């Protein structure tokens, strides 16, 4: 048996949560295997058993501080089913949508400006002392301020719809607990044009970067994959509601307009012993071929069109790059994400001008049910919440498939591709190891969400030989 070494990147930086990467090298220094391990543990499915169902949207959102709104709304949508609220009032649905677009907007802005922009602006090999948000603030102060102000705007939207910027109570089973006052509306309307302008700018940065570096990025952790997202009945991108659509790498439909309540007939999860994160797959294709990508790239790929003009124009341009076929370039996630930022800003503008938000009809109820599923397109991809409730109103079963979990296989593939290309047979440098993280960051993973704990993510890389001896270690 030949000599082998192992490189451990732990923890991975500039993503949400804790994880590590292990890279196995053979005696010739060739990468033989690379894996992203999620080392956090989530217990929420167990915590909420026995708790009353109306508490769940407020409880489960606490598994994350970055996109709690997504969990709040997914759980509320599941509880809508439980209380028989098949169609919400226009005020309730639009308030929730406004909350959700605010959430997408702030989360994408956080990721692009704070976590990713150092890689794009300074290059993968730049000095890590500069390649960080402080470096961005020093060299591109206007851009850094934009990022902060865009995130703030999204958070303000969440505050006026959910009651608080983080962990609010707005969505309740069957509706919403408040409308949007004229004063709240006007305070947001006065800044919307500026926000749209900044969104255009962010989109341009992401697009130009991708196009200018296309030769390198086309093969940077890229691979053909299936894509999955919710889709509106008419085929439009819909981040709040719709049926499930899955396509393959060529754009062929695997399934379409699947009712959210039937997700379990189409999606299953596999457990592996080296990660706390499960591996979801489409049942009809099995574990080997049924894995898929979710998130901005998948959503832009699956949508027939986007129903806001500027984002649609951007989508057409995005799809033209790959001749109208699905884009499978991992780093194109950033471009797709910024298309969604512009889409969200346009949606926010339209909603703020909709008088339904000042309505007073907030909650509906119908025939009580014992089981409900809530699906939503969270910033990082399709989010599944599934609950069963007994006759005494207590939760008896909960299952969450969070976006990052769906991207588990793709992230592992991206890590392996990048590791094999850049780390084989060469001295391991910080810049090369950063490439592994760059590939992971493209997915904007929320590792704390995916298994559920709290935390941030600094990085240590350790090279270990086959006897467990540490050969090399690098930290950031």
């Amino acid at each position, binding site marked *: 048996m030949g000599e082998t070494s192992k490189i451990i990147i732990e923890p991975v930086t500039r993503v949400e949560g804790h994880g590590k990467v292990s890279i196995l090298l053979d005696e010739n220094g060739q990468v033989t295997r690379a894996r992203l391990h999620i080392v956090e543990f989530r217990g929420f499915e167990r915590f909420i058993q*026995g*708790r*009353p169902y*109306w*508490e769940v949207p*407020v*409880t489960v959102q*606490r598994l994350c501080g970055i996109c709690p709104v997504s969990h709040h709304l997914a759980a509320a949508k599941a509880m809508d089913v439980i*209380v028989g609220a098949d169609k919400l009032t226009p005020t309730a649905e639009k308030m929730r949508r406004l909350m959700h677009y605010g959430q997408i907007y702030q989360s994408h802005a956080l990721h692009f400006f704070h976590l990713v922009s150092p890689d794009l602006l300074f290059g993968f090999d730049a000095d890590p002392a500069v390649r960080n948000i402080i470096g961005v603030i020093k060299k591109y102060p206007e851009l850094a301020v934009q990022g902060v102000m865009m995130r703030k705007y999204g958070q303000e939207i969440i505050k006026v719809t*959910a*009651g*608080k910027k983080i*962990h*609010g*109570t*707005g969505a*309740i*089973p069957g509706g919403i*607990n*408040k409308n949007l006052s004229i004063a709240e509306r006007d305070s947001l309307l006065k800044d919307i044009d500026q926000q749209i302008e900044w969104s255009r700018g962010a989109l341009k940065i992401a697009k130009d970067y991708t196009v200018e570096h296309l030769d390198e990025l086309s093969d940077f952790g890229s691979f053909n994959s299936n894509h999955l997202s919710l889709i509106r009945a008419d085929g439009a991108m819909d981040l709040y509601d719709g049926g499930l659509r899955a396509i393959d790498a060529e754009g062929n439909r695997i399934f379409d307009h699947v009712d959210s309540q039937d997700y379990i007939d189409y999606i299953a999860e596999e457990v592996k012993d080296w990660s706390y994160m499960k591996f979801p797959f489409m049942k009809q294709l099995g574990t080997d071929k049924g894995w898929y990508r979710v998130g901005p790239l998948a959503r832009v790929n699956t949508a027939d069109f986007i129903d806001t003009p500027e984002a649609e124009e951007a989508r057409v341009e995005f799809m033209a790059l790959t001749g109208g076929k699905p884009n499978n370039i991992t780093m194109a996630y950033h471009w797709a994400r910024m298309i969604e930022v512009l889409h969200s800003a346009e949606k926010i503008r339209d909603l703020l001008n909709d008088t339904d938000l000042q309505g007073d009809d907030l*909650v509906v109820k119908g025939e009580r049910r014992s089981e409900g599923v809530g699906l939503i397109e969270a910033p990082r991809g399709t989010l599944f919440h599934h609950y069963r409730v007994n006759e*005494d*109103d*207590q939760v008896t079963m909960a299952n969450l498939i969070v976006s990052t979990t769906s991207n588990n296989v793709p992230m592992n593939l991206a890590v392996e591709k990048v590791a094999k290309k850049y780390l084989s047979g060469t001295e391991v440098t910080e810049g090369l190891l950063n490439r592994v993280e760059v590939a992971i960051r493209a997915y904007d993973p929320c590792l704390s969400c995916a298994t559920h704990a709290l935390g941030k993510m600094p990085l240590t890389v350790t090279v270990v030989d086959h006897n467990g001896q540490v050969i090399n270690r690098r930290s950031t």
Partner: protein
Amino acid sequence: MSDKIKFTMDGVEIEATQGQTIMQAADEAGMYIPRLCAHKDLLPFGSCRVCTVMVNDRPQTACTQPVSPGMSVESETEELNDIRRSIVEMLFVEGNHYCPFCEKSGNCELQALGYRLGMLAPRYPYMFNKHDVDASHPDIYIDHNRCILCARCVRSSKELDGKNVFQFVGRGIHKRVAFNSDTDLSGTDVSVTDKAIENCPVGAILKKRSAYAVPIGKRKYDSQPLGSDIESRKAAVKQG
């Protein structure tokens, strides 16, 4: 002979009626004394000790101690408020009070009292005692994790509802509220409209399916701190 008497509280002369408790007289004068088990519609009980004041340098519960002419009462002192804060902290660590997602948050007297007394974090270790919930009643939900054993439900059921639904069982750390039933809450004659349900100061007894209906910012204590309703009388008394 007049039944009016005078005493001083925190240096302020208060006119009271013979037979009133210190708390009742102070309330009328617009001077708030912190409390938890006391309730305006219930008989004096003196259980939680949060309303402890110094009467002529001796500790007494303001909810049970009658006024007497010339008595000197101290309430708003650093020492007393520290003791009150200590009691509230003990209640927090003995139960499982997760304010961030509790549906009573913003309307909870324990939480509001913690804020009023400046409780930042309990100085005692959390006990994480295991408590049950009873969701058997179609309209009422009981969460013993949040019960502070104030006996408002026990007393309200007897004194106001004319029933005997709730009672304490066990002693010391094992003390808990039990139901007058061989099975669970659904086996009692409790009704969701009972005062026993309404008068729970915390999130232990709740009306089902009404959670979070009031948005953050509009809840009882979001803009009106605990005791401010009583203290607003002080201005009215002065103006009058």
